[in-house]
């Protein structure tokens, strides 16, 4: 079919528009990357948009030398790995229980869960529950309250229901236990949904700062994002960091601002590295959620 001139120009406009969208989406990332590789004092002169003008690795060196940052990286990685694995497994297990047709009290469990999606006690009562469980100021406050979310359970339930019952029955007839069926058959067939929810959980854990800020006071439990928050948003935090790093040396290649760029890139790095590989999984997972409601 031949395209009319009108249609062709519409196509061109669409492509140009999409290129503009890409630029708007990605440029902030690129800008921070460029600035993170530029000499801090030189950056202060302004006018850097596309390439570093005075290339340096000093920002990254200083960022990694900051021992607080090292600790924060460790805490963040630990909570991401432990939190994600435990949460995905726990949610999948509960959802598997709820995915059984004709489960007794199923409706009760479901109503109990759905209610939590729409009504909550709010921040202050939640804080006191954590307090009475002696969870404040422990590493576990990053893990246990995040173990289970009902929205994710619903996604799992929808997926499990689509696994042919005959597969499970065959295994049961062969003498496999229910636990064996769950771990060795159901979970293995659920890679797309496991990957989707693990990705969301993992990114949530990696990005979190709120619990670290308000539920812990121990500086050893600060997450990467919290450190970033302190260096980005708080002037007081910047002063503190300045003293910590001894950023007074005018001849050094870095400034507080240029270290901030490096820190941002360190926090974004793992996400950019991982997520293109899992895109196809979460697109599938979300599609499922969309179809099932």
């Amino acid at each position: 079919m031949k395209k009319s001139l009108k249609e062709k120009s519409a196509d061109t406009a669409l492509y140009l528009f999409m290129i503009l969208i890409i630029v708007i989406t990605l440029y902030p990332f690129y800008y921070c990357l460029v600035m993170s590789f530029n000499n801090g004092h030189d950056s202060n002169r302004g006018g850097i948009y596309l390439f570093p003008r005075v290339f340096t690795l000093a920002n990254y060196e200083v960022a990694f030398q900051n021992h607080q940052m090292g600790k924060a990286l460790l805490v963040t990685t630990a909570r991401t790995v432990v939190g994600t694995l435990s949460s995905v497994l726990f949610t999948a297990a509960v959802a598997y229980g709820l995915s059984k047709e004709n489960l007794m009290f199923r409706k009760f469990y479901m109503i109990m869960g759905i209610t939590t999606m729409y009504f909550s006690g709010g921040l202050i009562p939640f804080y006191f529950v954590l307090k009475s469980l002696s969870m404040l100021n422990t590493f576990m406050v990053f893990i246990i309250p995040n173990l289970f979310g009902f929205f994710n359970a619903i996604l799992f339930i929808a997926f499990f229901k689509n696994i042919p019952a005959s597969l499970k029955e065959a295994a049961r007839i062969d003498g496999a236990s229910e636990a064996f069926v769950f771990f060795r058959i159901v979970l293995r067939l659920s890679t797309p949904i496991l990957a989707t929810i693990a990705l969301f959980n993992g990114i949530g854990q990696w990005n979190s700062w709120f619990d670290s800020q308000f539920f812990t006071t121990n500086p050893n439990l600060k997450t990467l994002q919290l450190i970033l928050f302190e260096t980005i948003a708080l002037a007081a935090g910047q002063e503190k960091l300045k003293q910590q790093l001894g950023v007074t040396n005018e001849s050094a290649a870095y400034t507080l601002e240029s270290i901030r760029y490096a820190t941002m890139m360190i926090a974004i790095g793992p996400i950019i590295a991982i997520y293109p590989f899992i895109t196809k999984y979460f697109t599938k997972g979300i599609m499922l959620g969309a179809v099932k409601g």
Partner: protein
Amino acid sequence: MNSGRFPEKSYSRGMVYRFRKELFFQSLAILGGLFLLVFSYLPMFGIVMAFQNYNPSIGFVHSKFVGLHHFKDLFNDEAFWIAARNTVVLSSLKFVLGFFCPLIFALLLNELKDNFFKKFVQTSSYLPNFISWVIAGGMIIIFVSAASDGVLNPILIKLGWIKEAIPFLSYPGYYVAIALLSDIWKVTGFGAIIFLAAIAGIDHEVYEASIVDGASRFQRIYKITVPMIKDTIVVVLILGIGNLLGGGLGSSNFNQAYILGNPLNMGVSDVLDTYILRMGLQLGQFSFSAAAGLLLSVISMVLIYVANWTVRKINGDAIF
């Protein structure tokens, strides 16, 4: 429930039998129930403190009940009304934009014929959704900053639109625009996935038939695509209403206010979430803050029910 398999008199024995037979599944479900009991339902009971002069050292049982005292104080607090107004203004604007931008973006993406280019646009558009608000906020602060490493100001000066750098975040007048634009930047690409998934499910023959019939591109979009993904649109709307007061699907109100907010723009940036946090965890007015939290929860709840009811009336089908 009991359809003859077990005689009436052994009904309870039948339940026990059934429960034991389902023990593996039941224990998994109960595990989830216990979790919700502790981390979702206990806080709900904790709402009692909104009606008390809660004192953490003596607990709920001994704290004195004061009825609606804190609610009266709340309604007399000017800062509460400012936060409430800001919440409503920001949330409703974000809700509308957070719905239409992803929908339009998905429809446009669907018009791209080059698959590689389409994938590339799509994948890059998700990226902002996956970075934390701390970093997103940091980027925004940098972009609009009046300092030499800002981006927007030098461009505007070069274009001759302004004479000297404007510290955008120091003027309340710019805050709403910055909040909305950053929200669009962050959630549009990701929000479009769900619509794209729905569009992918439409039978291609419908389009081919319409082309034969001479439908224009625009007609195909609003006469075929949009009606065919109506169900998904409804789901997205209801999910959005669930988080409406938090700033729509991205629930960005708290993060934006906390990160982009400053004493100069507080009059427009302070929202109920930050208000509750400030009063509660930072100033220690637990009961007062819990009262505000309860109010927020109740309004959200009402909104969801109204939305659900409306959808049922219009669509004959609802989420719950």
